[in-house]
């Protein structure tokens, strides 16, 4: 694969389904947000504590998103039932 081939993959969109599994694309983005946010917040970046902090923030965001999804689902269910 040449550099041109690699560049050409950026001119055509990838195939992504519309199913619920496409929501999994949010996971790597959440990791990025956790890493950059922690990189700006910690006093000193040391490998193990930094990874631990990022994992904790990632887990917190995921739990909050799940709770928000459940609440929205319950509200939608109560309105439409």
């Amino acid at each position: 694969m040449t550099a041109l081939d690699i560049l050409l993959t950026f001119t055509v969109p990838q195939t992504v389904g519309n199913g619920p599994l496409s929501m999994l694309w949010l996971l790597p983005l959440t990791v990025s947000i956790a890493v950059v946010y922690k990189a700006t917040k910690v006093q000193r970046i040391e490998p193990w504590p930094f990874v631990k902090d990022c994992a904790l923030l990632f887990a917190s965001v995921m739990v909050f998103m799940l709770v928000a999804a459940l609440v929205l689902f319950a509200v939608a269910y109560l309105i439409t039932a």
Partner: protein
Amino acid sequence: MNSDTDSSHYAHLIIAGLLGWAIPGAGHFYIGERVRAAVIFVTVVLTFTVGLWVGSVGVIDPVHGKLPYAGQIMNSPAVAAIGHLTRSGHYPVYGRPNEIGQIYTSISGLLNLLCIVNAVYLAHVKRRGREGRTA
């Protein structure tokens, strides 16, 4: 503090901010935060690249996607060059790839904005701290 020191301080802050915008993490590198700079560079560039790969360069659309473009341009001025290329509408992208691509590229731009503000803040704090010690 005299006006010469003041203007040199402001120039220092502006350079840190502009470098952080030109290349993600470069603002932190300039003020000596090399590990932080590397983490920011890898994460922001990777997020932006994944967004471009999923949705193609067409997700950067300064004509029909002004709001996402406002976030995307925070990645680097180089995004304006991609926007100039896609302005013609030769790289159409629709549906889920467009959404994912726009979300990734916009969020990476907003993350870089956070890093720019942080680099300017750290530059200010470090310079003031050094001046406080020498006074």
